């Protein structure tokens, strides 16, 4: 390997710093008392505490799923801090009251907290450890009836909406991690787009896990009423710790008649070092319900960071003529493991879904696509197109595809395409022989490979994703 490549391999994770800020955390471990404590700290209404306790009791009866193609030591759920928040906790009336240390952290991460600096027109909700720190542009959005706030604020200010939709897409007992999240979730983002409103700016949430040994369990709920539309972006980073941190989020999307939700994620949690030490365990349940006719939910994700990714953003296509889309790039390097994909559940008539999944494996990593396309008996005229491409870099990594197709209606049309390719030494030598250095060569190959997904990302995310993938892969060929 050349020196330049060697240096690039050892390039540190640039978001791996820890912010020196006093945090208030509940003791490690999980029990009904801890849940009551969390609920109390957050001044929650009784019904929400009940929701949590019910989820917790259900969770106790459940088994950690073992069907995914990932291996990790058993998680000790009593060794996790379930709630950590920056101190002091007081009501923040304006941006200027945010802890300056915290503000510097987000500036370092490139999240613009100052509204004055917000030239890009993106409204941001920032989640630090478990607590939503601030939501920008809130007032401006409120003028046209859009609610964009932290989940805690939504519980306080719009309890009826939360009560109506919480758990309506991902029930509290849906799966092991969703149940855990339902029991202990601490904060997250809430977004409500009223009837006929097109959200004039992209809404964005930035997640950051800071405290060592803490888990992050955020909850996101997005509701798009009849004829409305919204574009939502999610970014994630974490500091570099030797221990593994658990991230078990739940995201629920509801689209009513003719509504349109576009949800994009660039996930760059800390992946652990090249020997697989440390990193985030990312067990996330994301699901969208196309409840109304002609509704549309589109997931775009770029997954690069976690030590383990277990994530299947899905669409339940209930309304007739509704559309579900999934565009994904999942990259694994070193000893990372990813088992990710989607589920498209066709229930209504003439529902359509499209899956474009690109997996890139490098180092000694293991990258699996797992997908389900299910067409119910009433879903006449349903259509699905799936394309799953894998790219291998080097000869010690693994790529798998596990597509499941379950069709119960004879009028459905299902297409599935798959390919596997490899970036090898010969390709790199070819680029070099044409005067193109390894950095640019990898970036060009990866961009070409991911093109079909990147076009669905908002511009600034696409640029970031391109750089991120290049950075993650440099040095993996050579």
């Amino acid at each position, binding site marked *: 390997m050349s020196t330049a490549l060697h240096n690039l391999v050892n390039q540190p994770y640039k978001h791996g710093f820890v912010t020196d800020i006093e945090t208030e955390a509940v003791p490690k471990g999980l029990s009904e008392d801890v849940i009551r404590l969390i609920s109390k700290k957050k001044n929650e209404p009784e019904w929400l505490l009940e929701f949590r306790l019910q989820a917790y009791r259900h969770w106790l009866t459940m088994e950690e799923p073992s069907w995914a193609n990932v291996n990790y030591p058993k998680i000790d759920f009593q060794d996790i801090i379930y709630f950590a928040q920056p101190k002091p906790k007081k009501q923040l009336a304006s941006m200027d009251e945010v802890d300056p240390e915290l503000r510097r952290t987000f500036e370092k991460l490139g999240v613009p907290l100052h509204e004055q600096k917000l030239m890009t027109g993106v409204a941001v909700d920032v989640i630090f450890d478990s607590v939503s720190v601030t939501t920008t542009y809130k007032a401006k959005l409120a003028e046209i009836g859009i609610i964009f706030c932290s989940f805690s604020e939504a519980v306080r200010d719009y309890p009826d909406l939360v009560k109506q939709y919480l758990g309506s897409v991902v029930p509290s007992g849906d799966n092991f991690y969703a149940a855990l999240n339902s029991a202990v979730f601490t904060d997250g983002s809430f977004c409500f787009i009223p009837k006929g409103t097109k959200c004039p700016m992209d809404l964005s949430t930035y997640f950051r896990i800071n405290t060592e040994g803490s888990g992050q369990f955020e909850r996101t709920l997005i509701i798009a009423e009849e004829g409305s539309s919204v574009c939502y972006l999610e970014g994630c980073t974490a500091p570099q710790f030797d221990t593994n941190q658990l991230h078990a989020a739940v995201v629920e999307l509801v689209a009513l008649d003719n509504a349109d939700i576009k949800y994009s994620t660039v996930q760059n949690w800390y992946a652990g070092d090249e020997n697989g030490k440390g990193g985030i365990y990312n067990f996330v349940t994301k699901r969208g319900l196309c409840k109304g006719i002609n509704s549309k939910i589109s997931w775009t994700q770029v997954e690069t960071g976690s030590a383990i990714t277990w994530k299947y953003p899905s669409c339940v296509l209930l309304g007739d003529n509704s559309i579900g889309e999934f565009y994904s790039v999942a990259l694994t390097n070193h000893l990372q493991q990813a088992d990710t994909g989607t589920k498209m559940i066709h229930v209504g008539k003439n529902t359509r879904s499209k899956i474009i999944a690109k997996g890139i494996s490098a180092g000694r990593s293991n990258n699996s696509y797992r997908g389900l396309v299910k067409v119910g008996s009433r879903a006449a005229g349903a259509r699905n197109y799936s394309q799953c491409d894998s790219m291998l870099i080097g000869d010690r990594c693994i790529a798998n595809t596990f597509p499941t197709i379950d069709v119960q209606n004879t009028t459905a049309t299902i297409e599935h395409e798959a390919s596997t390719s490899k970036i090898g030494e010969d390709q790199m030598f070819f680029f*070099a022989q044409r*005067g193109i250095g390894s950095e640019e060569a990898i970036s060009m190959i990866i961009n070409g490979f991911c093109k079909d997904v990147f076009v669905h990302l908002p511009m600034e995310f696409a640029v970031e994703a391109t750089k991120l993938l290049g950075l993650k892969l440099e040095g993996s060929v050579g």
Partner: protein
Amino acid sequence: MINKDSKVLLEVKNLRAEVGGVQILKGVDLTIRTGEVHAIMGINGSGKSTFSKVLAGHPDYAVTGGTASFEGKDLFSLEPEERARAGLFLAFQYPVEIPGVSNSALLRLAYNTLQSERGLEELDPLEFEDLVQEKLKVVEMDPSFLGRSVNEGFSGGEKKRNEILQMAVLAPRLAILDETDSGLDIDALRIVANGVNSLLSPDNAVVMVTHYQRLLNYIVPDYVHVMDGGRIVRTGDKNLALELEARGYDWLRAAA
């Protein structure tokens, strides 16, 4: 065209190289001046493809002795991409496919990298389009090839023409064609040869590595070298190639 006063482009002395611990080149000497066309012939395993890969800097091959200077620079002190930017071009025997990367994007990046290396202006996509349209004519390629992924789904002949298109765009000082004629039908051979001929000038040089005399009917060499056992064992003019065609390689080995 031989002109003893022209500049020395490449001077290789006593070059030794190995791959996977096996010594393949055992002392190659070769001098190439601008304006010259060389052919290197020899049986399989004689070292001729190794020779071209070593010059281009393929990472699998290790130089174990000897020197090579390219326009006065120590070739082996340069990384493969630096050699390319210095004007050394290798047309591959087996061109690789690069899925998802369009031919035009690759050509433009390679071209602009060279331009900036030479302190010249880089071209934007529209300006480059004009340039590349002209170059397509050199290899009689359809413009639709520009939008396709590099070599993906190309026939053997199309891949080889694509190599020559890259050569036309990059205008190297020294082009090494590694068995560019293999797998070509007679029409494709003629197109490739015409392309190469049109790119020859008194300022550059071409080395053809080939098994067969056939290509040399179209691109007439000034020198023909025969490699055997990792060395150049005989050098002659184009008549040497004809003689090899008629008599095979054995008579030469017996003589040597």
